[in-house]
């Protein structure tokens, strides 16, 4: 193997792809979209508060709902009684309200119906407010009908509100609080990224092979480069593209999201927890980090979520992510290269690509199982088996307690071993494939080429 030539091939592959408009657009746009996805929901949440006040007229014939509705910044309830609903309806325009709600009088079964009239659809929130008030009012009314002594005390006594706090006991006796949903979200995102990008960059290698074959420059190339060197150069070149793209993505998304959080996010937390003083301190100290924000957020739900996030070892997870992404990519890319060599245009790849993407799809299904049972036998074996391990292991890693080091090493070792084996086999198919024209190749052909 001539490393210098692999270098030249990889260099060209990298330069050509990085200079493409589609690469530049995708590299810049993706983090913006990604950041937007993270930022927009919170912006919307904050903006909700600024929406114009709604005005709702309640015609309460039952007499038990209206008193339970409380006007606030977003809505005022205008309670009327003993009016004719039909005349109100007819003069709806003159009422100057956003909605008119009619509550019928109690019937013999102690039930009533509620109808809301409006020119525009009522918001979900408003509907559920009214519904809750009605249910609550009716429930209390019915309970009162039984005339039980000390009812209020009994009810207060019965009322329960229990949540489960999961504290992870570390080996060093350290206790960390954990929010499994957060770990799951991280695990889900990373696994999915591995799945998507191994396929995406694998396809890139395949396209590149097909391009060289179909425009026949490969005939010129292989008189100076060995097919194996050409294939390796290609795979390495595209890997370079992937790494550069990821680094830009991570940096850009990080800058955008943290920039936003540092300026606006702290305000949000102070709004939600009322602990303004501490948050402002954090902000003023200039050293922005999640754990100090978490401390500021205190004991609230948000605080414990932030604590969970600050407890996650991101450098460890990202390190594992890079190892599994690169090795997973290398494992699959060589197979994509072999398939690219067997066809002359992309339309013909369908039936050949299916069997090699199958393990990835299976891995994706196992990953869904792994979220529920990160330590089951299936999760374990699938995270060791090289064709599924990049995804399944990545699904296990972000969970607290992590993965024992020996499993990680075994999995990575096997992945490396299989990578070398797969490249060797793919190289043999590639060597024959790139010079074969005409007949559409089948798996049987590929098998035959292995023995040439």
């Amino acid at each position: 193997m001539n490393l210098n030539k692999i270098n030249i091939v990889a260099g060209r592959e990298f330069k050509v792809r990085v200079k493409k408009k589609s690469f530049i657009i995708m590299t810049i746009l993706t983090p913006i979209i990604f950041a937007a996805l993270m930022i927009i929901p919170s912006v919307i949440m904050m903006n909700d508060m600024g929406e114009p006040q709604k005005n709702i007229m309640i015609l309460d014939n039952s007499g038990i709902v209206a008193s339970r509705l409380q006007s606030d910044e977003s809505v005022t309830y205008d309670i009327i009684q003993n009016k004719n609903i039909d005349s109100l309806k007819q003069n709806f325009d003159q009422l100057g309200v956003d909605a008119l709600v009619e509550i019928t009088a109690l019937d013999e079964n102690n039930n009533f119906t509620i109808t809301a009239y409006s020119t525009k659809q009522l918001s979900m929130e408003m509907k559920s407010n009214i519904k809750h008030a009605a249910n609550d009012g009716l429930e209390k009314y019915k309970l009162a009908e039984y005339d039980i002594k000390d009812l209020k005390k009994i009810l207060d006594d019965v009322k329960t509100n229990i949540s489960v706090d999961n504290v992870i006991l570390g080996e060093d006796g350290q206790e960390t609080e954990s929010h499994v949903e957060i770990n799951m979200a991280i695990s889900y995102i990373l696994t999915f990224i591995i799945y998507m990008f191994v396929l995406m960059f694998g396809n890139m290698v395949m396209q590149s092979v097909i391009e060289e074959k179909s425009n026949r420059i490969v005939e010129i190339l292989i008189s100076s480069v060995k097919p194996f060197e050409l294939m390796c150069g290609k795979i390495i070149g595209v890997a370079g593209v992937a790494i550069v793209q990821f680094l830009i993505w991570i940096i850009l998304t990080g800058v955008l999201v943290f920039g936003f959080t540092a300026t606006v996010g702290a305000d949000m937390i102070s709004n939600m927890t009322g602990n303004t003083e501490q948050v402002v301190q954090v902000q003023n100290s200039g050293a922005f980090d999640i754990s100090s924000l978490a401390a500021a957020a205190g004991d609230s739900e948000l605080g414990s979520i932030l604590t969970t996030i600050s407890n996650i070892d991101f450098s460890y997870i990202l390190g594992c992510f890079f190892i599994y992404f690169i090795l997973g990519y290398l494992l699959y890319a060589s197979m994509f290269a072999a398939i690219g060599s067997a066809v002359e245009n992309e339309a013909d790849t369908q039936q050949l690509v299916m069997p090699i993407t199958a393990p990835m799809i299976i891995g994706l299904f196992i990953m869904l199982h792994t979220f529920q049972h990160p330590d089951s036998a299936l999760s374990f074996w699938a995270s060791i088996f090289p064709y599924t391990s990049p995804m399944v292991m990545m699904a296990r890693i972000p969970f607290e307690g992590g993965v024992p080091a020996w499993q990680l090493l075994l999995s990575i070792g096997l992945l490396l071993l299989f990578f070398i084996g797969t490249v060797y086999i793919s190289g043999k198919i590639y060597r024959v494939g790139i010079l074969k024209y005409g007949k559409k190749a089948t798996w049987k052909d590929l098998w035959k080429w292995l023995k040439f």
Partner: protein
Amino acid sequence: MNTIECKNIVKEFGTFRALNNVSISVPQGKIFGLLGPNGAGKTTLIRIMNQISLPDQGSVFFNGNLLKGDDVYKIGYLPEERGLYKKMKVGDQALYLAKLKGLNTRQATRELKIWFKKFSIDAWWDKKVEELSKGMAQKIQFITTVLHKPKLLILDEPFAGFDPINVQLIRNEILRMKDEGTTIILSTHNMESVEELCDNIALINKSNLVVTGGVDEIRRKHGKNQVELIYKASEALNFSSSVISDEVFKDYRKAIFNLEKEETTKEAIQKILPEVDHILSVRELIPSMNDIFIELVSKEAK
């Protein structure tokens, strides 16, 4: 001294034998024609010489030594089915191919500028290949094949796709390189250029070597000792030897006859000379490479 020598090459693809015990010797500084119908095994042999594939049996010697990895730097190969990256700039592309042939960027740029000027295509350096015509792309491919000054040049249908002016240009370059001592293997179906350029040939048909040797020697060997005579006489001549045809040809008559065994053309003419009024031309009929090709290949088919 042979630049390249293939000895008893056997190559099989599965059950199909693409080359069956083929041996050829290509002398240094000569142009060697590699001929054969489509699918005969020429490309397989060329790929073995380029180390693109390895023979199952037999060996290849380059300048007297077994062919080895580094020899690719001394060989230039212009494949028949050749392409370029469509979206890449001409200059970048030529540099890339030159670097793969072991030149560094500085050498490659200098050499390329010289060649681009010589082929008057220096204005194309920054153009993409998809903007070029087929002939222009062919020129670039030719340049990248010879740029690293190979000792052995293997050209597969080098004239395909060129107009007559560019054919002349390429032909002159080939002859100039031959004069400089480059050994050239020329694989083509154009038999006229074989007669004109090649010193030696090898004809491969159905995986076997049919004939190899000097062009003149092979042509003479395949001659049927026929003479064509265009003459004027009061009446049709009475050839002593078997006459194949004797018919009116404008104001003359044209006769083709076989020479007797051991008889020379001079002796045959002397015999009929008294009866002839006027001789316009006499020539021995040496078969063209085209005739030999068709004869040998169709004989095999029977």
